[in-house]
């Protein structure tokens, strides 16, 4: 299996995990180990003196995981840039997931703020992974300003509606010169496999694992699915075989050999 190349670094695993919504840090760490993920997203919040044991930095660093701080909580580009700078200070990694969703209900990413934040952060040497609506033109814009990958949503965060943006993601993949990573809305491992079969370079999964009955087992299942989907694509999928039939021959005008 070829390695995932992102921001000048290489990764074996094409499953990226989000660390939100787990019932405890222990369960989250078990899920990460079971998934084989080498990249995980984390968020920034105010340090809480009453709960110092929620420290993630220590355990994740000990696992050898590359941290991808996200900018969730930011409502505009300026806030996202500050969040990214704080994240880099803390993690020591240059990766950042630009995540700006001003509407707290559907959590849809703001395309304009995301573009502006990504442009500034890329200029500042960050390895920018923007979370974006599944828009093919926006994807090229983000590529142009130096993002390391694009992360189109599969469906709204936490809704588990799967790859509702499949047709748009296919267009993005067809034109993209950088990795395409579907993020948000995947509910089942089969959907992760489908994303990989479509040509995604990786997938990011959070809610589907955190909210599962047994998160670690679900994480392991997603890992298998991502490998299967990727391997299937490399092996060359059989075509669907739907095509029209002409009533009279179209090539009778071509004589000779």
């Amino acid at each position, binding site marked *: 299996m070829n390695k995932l190349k992102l921001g000048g670094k290489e990764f074996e695993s094409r499953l990226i995990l*989000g*660390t*939100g*919504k*787990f019932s405890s*840090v222990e369960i*989250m760490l078990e899920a990460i180990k079971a998934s084989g993920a080498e990249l995980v*997203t*984390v*968020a*920034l*919040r*105010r*340090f809480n*003196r009453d709960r110092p044991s*929620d*420290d*993630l*930095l*220590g355990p*994740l660093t000990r696992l050898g995981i590359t*941290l991808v*701080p*996200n900018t*969730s909580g930011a409502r505009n580009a300026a806030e996202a840039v*500050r969040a990214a*700078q*704080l*994240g880099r*200070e*803390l*993690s020591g990694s240059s990766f950042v997931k630009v*995540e700006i969703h001003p509407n707290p209900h559907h959590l849809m990413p703001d395309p304009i703020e995301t573009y502006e934040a990504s442009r500034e952060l890329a200029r500042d040497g960050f390895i920018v992974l923007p979370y974006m609506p599944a828009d093919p033109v926006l994807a090229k814009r983000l590529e142009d300003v130096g993002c390391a990958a694009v992360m189109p949503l599969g469906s709204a*965060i936490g809704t588990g509606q799967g790859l509702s943006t499949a047709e748009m993601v296919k267009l993005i993949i067809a034109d993209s010169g950088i990795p395409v990573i579907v993020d*948000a809305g995947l509910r089942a491992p089969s959907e992760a496999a489908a994303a990989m079969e479509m040509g995604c370079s990786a997938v*990011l999964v*959070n*809610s589907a694992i955190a909210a599962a009955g047994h998160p670690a087992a679900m994480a392991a299942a997603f890992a298998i699915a991502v490998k299967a989907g990727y391997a299937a694509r490399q092996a060359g999928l059989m075509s669907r075989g739907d095509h029209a039939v002409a009533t009279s021959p179209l090539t009778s005008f071509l004589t000779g050999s």
Partner: protein
Amino acid sequence: MTGAFFMNIVVNGNQHELAGAGTLDQLLKELEIVPERVAIMVNDRVIPKLNRKDVALREGDRVEILTFIGGG
């Protein structure tokens, strides 16, 4: 030299009386925070770890002390 010297600042949205020299390192020590575990903003400016010793806090400064939590 320090004596009974106090300063009012805002830390993570709450009023805080800072005793002592008024540097960020002092504040972290007072709050019993391991410096490597947090990132800090003062008045909306990100303060790199290396510069913490150079930042002298002033009355009314707003300090944000942040750490990583789980997120998607």
